[in-house]
């Protein structure tokens, strides 16, 4: 069950023709799929498209009504392979993932799919995770479109355009027997807007029909000689078909005046940024009127030569606005124009930065540079661009650089992964630093303060694989970390299987928090929750033993820092050959709290006896050295300044967000820190026996306390 409930959004998916849909971009896409009569949807969660997966799995009922099969794929490769249902049958299917990370994983299936081609519309929604807020390497998905001849749609970032793009994508795919990628950037996925909905469509041809009337065509299978034919077919048939469809349906758009001696060519996704920049330059207004001709490529690939030529002819210069590098389209423009011997100057990465996000200031400055070079008079006596540099230069503002702390994402309050890395830090205190290979997932936050653990990250489920070279005799072993998400995505075969097969003499820690936590807490194979529509509760330990791992330890309470540390020590020092695998399991606290909080409140209201645990610090015992924080970094464990004139430094303090996970106490105990920490057990609705016991204890303890306090010499307060 995901971190967030999408019950309300599911209702939005049900609305019919003429009603207004209000919401997030990625949910509009989900609605567009249902309006397109899609038969099956798959994908792998990850920002920025997680919400699509989450809302679809919450919408199971609706999907059944519509006869749509939805699947949480094991990986992006699985999702891409799923599209092969549309190879032989007129079935519309869609899959989604985070790109380029996911596209990299999916590329094998994508190449095969696009080689053979498709009959039914096959659409891939890719969340382009580029620029601010991105959690992955900065690359363009565009290269995949070009190398495999998959059409790439990059719509203007408003809901009507995005929805239209998805609907057209299916038709384009069918018209050209080619899979189509619809690219939406992070901000577009999370953009709030509105569009007028259509009715949801049941698929005209169902999966059941296909199953019961199978058909095959060796010409569609990627084997010689067919595979050679596919390449020619791509160029001779599918490409022209796509070009015609895109022209006829006017998927690309023109704005601004018909003529002009300069023009801007932009990808759809860049539209709002370009318009704001032109507005700041006094060449457009906020309602979309532009003084400069614009050619908006809602289809980033293939390019429509005739449209480009028509736009460029008679212009002195055009500028290509495409984010990221290399500048594929700018290069293509030059080829197109040179072939037709058109002398229009093509600008792009000469006025725009070669790398990095096209933020508002970048956009404005770069377009101004273009106009200064090729149409100075257009700029006229423009008002200056917004410019914070004067105030940023002010000494009082500069001083802030020393004061404002970096605040990267980190482990949540009570996160079960925190004690794992606390233990790792303690072991390194004893055995010295080790090479630690990290992976993808929440556990990657270990590379940040206060843990500063982790050397490399090579991909989802590839942590241990990325340590496989260090399989030589040495006095130290490599440690590698992998999450349960990565384990099932790819890790079991690529990392564990590989380590067993090659007798990799290293330590592998599998961080098992019962969910794919970093992507929003989706269920996975080893989730402990019962899930009516999925087969959960598959043991990671049995899986690794199944592939032949011998030295396997299961830790069922990661908060037991002592046990965690001792197990790590044993793994690093044992003489056993082969991989030493530690499966460290405790439930993701974010999801656990979401699960148990309401239950607890309910039970408390009903007068049930309950115990709530939380931690605290005795401030007069704490000496303010913050060693505990250097082994925790928990948001609810912070520092507090006191008014005690004999103290210089703030003391540790636990706030009311504490969920009583136990890390503080366990760490204080395991690292022999100090006796300042206490765990308070708060008993709700105490039983009669509790009260009687409390009475006796109170009497004895109270008597002793009064006795000593009577003798204590103190100043009158």
């Amino acid at each position, binding site marked *: 069950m995901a971190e967030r409930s999408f019950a309300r959004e599911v209702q939005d998916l049900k609305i019919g023709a003429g009603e207004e849909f209000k919401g997030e971009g990625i949910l509009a896409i989900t609605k567009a799929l249902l309006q397109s009569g899609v038969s099956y949807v798959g994908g792998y969660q990850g920002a920025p498209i997680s919400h699509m997966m989450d809302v679809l799995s919450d919408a199971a009922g609706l999907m059944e009504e519509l006869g749509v099969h939805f699947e949480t794929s094991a990986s992006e490769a699985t999702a891409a392979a799923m599209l092969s249902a549309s190879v032989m049958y007129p079935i519309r299917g869609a899959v989604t993932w985070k790109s380029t990370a996911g596209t990299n994983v999916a590329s094998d299936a994508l190449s095969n799919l696009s080689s053979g081609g498709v009959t039914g519309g096959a659409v891939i929604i890719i969340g382009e995770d580029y620029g601010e807020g991105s959690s992955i390497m900065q690359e363009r998905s565009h290269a995949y479109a070009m190398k495999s001849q998959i059409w790439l749609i990059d719509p203007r970032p408003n809901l009507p355009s995005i929805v239209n793009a998805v609907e057209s994508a299916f038709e384009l795919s069918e018209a050209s027997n080619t899979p189509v990628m619809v690219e939406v950037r992070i901000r577009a996925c999370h953009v709030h807007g509105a569009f007028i909905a259509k009715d949801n469509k049941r698929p005209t041809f169902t999966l059941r029909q296909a199953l019961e009337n199978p058909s095959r065509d060796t010409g569609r299978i990627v084997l010689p000689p067919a595979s050679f034919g596919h390449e020619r077919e791509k160029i001779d048939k599918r490409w022209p078909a796509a070009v015609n469809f895109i022209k006829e349906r006017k998927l690309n758009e023109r704005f601004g005046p018909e003529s002009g001696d300069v023009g801007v060519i932009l990808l759809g996704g860049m539209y709002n940024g370009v318009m704001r920049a032109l507005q700041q330059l006094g060449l457009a207004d906020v309602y979309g009127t532009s003084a400069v001709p614009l050619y908006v490529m809602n289809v980033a690939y293939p390019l429509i030569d005739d449209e480009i030529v028509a736009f460029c002819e008679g212009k002195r210069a055009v500028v290509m606005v495409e984010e990221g590098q290399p500048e594929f389209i700018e290069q293509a423009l030059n080829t197109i124009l040179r072939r037709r011997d058109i002398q229009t100057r093509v600008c792009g990465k000469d006025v725009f930065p070669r790398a990095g996000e096209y933020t508002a200031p970048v956009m404005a400055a770069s377009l101004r540079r273009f106009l200064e070079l090729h149409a100075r008079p257009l700029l006229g006596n423009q008002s200056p661009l917004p410019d914070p540099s004067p105030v940023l230069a002010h000494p009082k503002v500069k001083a802030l650089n020393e004061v404002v702390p970096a605040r990267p994402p980190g482990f949540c309050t009570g996160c079960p992964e925190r004690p794992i890395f606390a233990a790792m830090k303690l072991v390194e205190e004893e055995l010295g630093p080790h090479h630690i290979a990290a992976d993808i997932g929440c556990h990657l936050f270990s590379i940040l303060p206060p843990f500063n653990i982790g050397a490399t990250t090579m991909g989802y489920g590839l942590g241990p694989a990325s340590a496989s070279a260090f399989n030589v005799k040495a006095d130290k072993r490599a440690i590698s970390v992998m999450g349960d998400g990565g384990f099932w995505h790819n890790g079991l075969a690529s990392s564990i299987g590989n380590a067993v097969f090659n007798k990799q003499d290293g330590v592998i820690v599998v961080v098992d928090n019962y969910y794919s936590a970093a992507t929003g807490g989706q269920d996975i194979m080893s989730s402990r929750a019962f899930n009516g529509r999925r087969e959960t509760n598959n043991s990671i330990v049995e899986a690794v033993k199944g592939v032949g791992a011998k030295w396997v330890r299961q830790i069922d309470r990661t908060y037991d820092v002592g046990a965690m540390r001792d197990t790590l020590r044993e793994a690093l020092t044992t003489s056993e050959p082969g991989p030493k695998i530690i499966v460290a399991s405790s439930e993701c606290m974010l999801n656990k709290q979401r699960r148990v909080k309401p239950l607890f409140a309910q039970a408390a209201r009903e007068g049930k006896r309950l115990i709530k645990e939380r931690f*605290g610090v005795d401030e007069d015992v704490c000496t303010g050295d913050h060693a505990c924080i250097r082994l925790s970094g928990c948001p609810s464990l912070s520092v507090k300044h006191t008014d005690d004139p004999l103290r210089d430094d703030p003391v540790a303090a636990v706030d009311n967000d504490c969920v009583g996970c136990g890390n503080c106490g366990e760490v204080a105990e395991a690292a022999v820190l100090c006796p300042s920490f*206490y765990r308070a057990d708060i008993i709700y609705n105490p039983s009669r026996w509790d009260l009687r016991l409390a009475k006796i204890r109170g009497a004895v303890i109270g008597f002793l306390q009064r006795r000593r306090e009577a003798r204590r010499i103190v100043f009158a307060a």
Partner: protein
Amino acid sequence: MSSPRDADAMNSSLAMTETFRHASDKPISLAVLAMGGQGGGVLTDWIVALAESCGWCAQSTSVPGVAQRTGATIYYVEMLPAKDGKAPVLSLMPSPGDVDIVLAAELMEAGRSILRGLTTPEKTLLIASTHRSFAVVEKEKPGDGAGDPNAVIEAAGVAARRTIAFDMETLAAKHGSVISAALFGALAGAGALPFPREAFEKVIAAGGRGIEPSLKAFAAGFERASGAPQPEILRRSPAKRHDPLPAAPSAHAPLNTLIDRIAKEFPEGLHPLLFAGVKRLVDFQDPAYAGDYLDRVAVFNALEGTTGAARGFALTERAAKYVAVAMAYDDVIRVADLKTRSTRFQRVRDEVSAEPDQLVYTTEYMHPRAEEIVGLLPASLGGWIESRRKLFASIDRLVNKGRRVQSGSVRWFLPLYLLAGLRRFRRGTLRHRHEVAHLEAWLELARRYAEANYDLAVEILAARRLVKGYSDTHARGLSKYDRVVSALPVLAGREDGAAWLRRLVQAALVDEKGAALDGVLKTVASL
């Protein structure tokens, strides 16, 4: 260079600008800076719903990524009514220098908005909560790593057109709600949006849970923002408590003697500090022990004599502070004592905000080692054991393990209570002998340099702040102190010796292992 072709081009482009009818309307732009889990998303949704409920077009975007996990996040909203059926084209990201309103859900996030150029003096209304939520890099420092809040307020003074800043976290909590409600109220109260208060409240009421508290917090935020500004005095840490000497004599003669001594023997400015020291030590041991404290401080007071006044009695002041801390060292007895007091039982109840009908039991996490146990023994016996490593080690094997002490149960309270009772034997313990030895060596050091280099002596006394914590941490503190004072021979002769020693102490507090300290030590060695 201008060819006829260029000329035509220019004409045509001029023509183009003339034919272009340019609507000058601009959307209201608003950025929300919050930390993951602070409800920045909820606040953003409210603002969008508000604008839409008043017939405006509104667009919000965010780039949460994994930042929902406690990291800093920015949400961005633009709003503007449609014009003759034409919806506005709104930007998906803020333009630095072109943001009308910035809402910051924490003080340093307000600082971040300024550093990112989102808050500018020409346009921006900055609405910020002044409460602090410390970042890991601030709180992990062995010393005080907290950023200076006034730096942000100062910067806001020059960076924002108008600033509304107050502690909305506390305000919201007071009404049982969350900060987003208070921020929403402040936004309404600031009158920066062309929407009536009722529209704001309707949006909250349309929401799901906690409507009543949210409306209360909203109202409170509204009042604060719309009322006359009441600037808060922000400080990195609260003012230190300086209780004056009690006027009325206490019931205990020995205490009165101590008070009289402070009054008679010491400069008036230091009375509150000495009183604090005396209180701490009477509480730690007994009045006689506090008497020893005054004796030790008196030595330094005598040392600076009449010349002290001119220097604000810095030497005596440092002595008064750090001798008290050093003498009230953290031993098993003290910990047991503090943990078994009735006042402590009550404080825990308050801290966990337990209801009267609820029971609260505490579990202490203790990890005694041979050092602690042997330290409790009479000095001679303890010393004898200490000098026999094998025996010492075997004792350590026996005792050295974590113990969960349920101090609320009689069977655990009793031993703690008895341990605390050992107080009367404390002066005889091995630990006390060690502490006194270190204390005297330290004071001797200060005395030795006081004549020749007064300022250096002052800093020597202050260097004692490095010795703190328990077990390993305590050992690390001692070693840092030793490394710092090891520089004295070099520094003694120098005019700026004191300044260097202060730098060494500061460096020692930057990181755990003392890497920064070693750096400065190298520099000192090269002097």
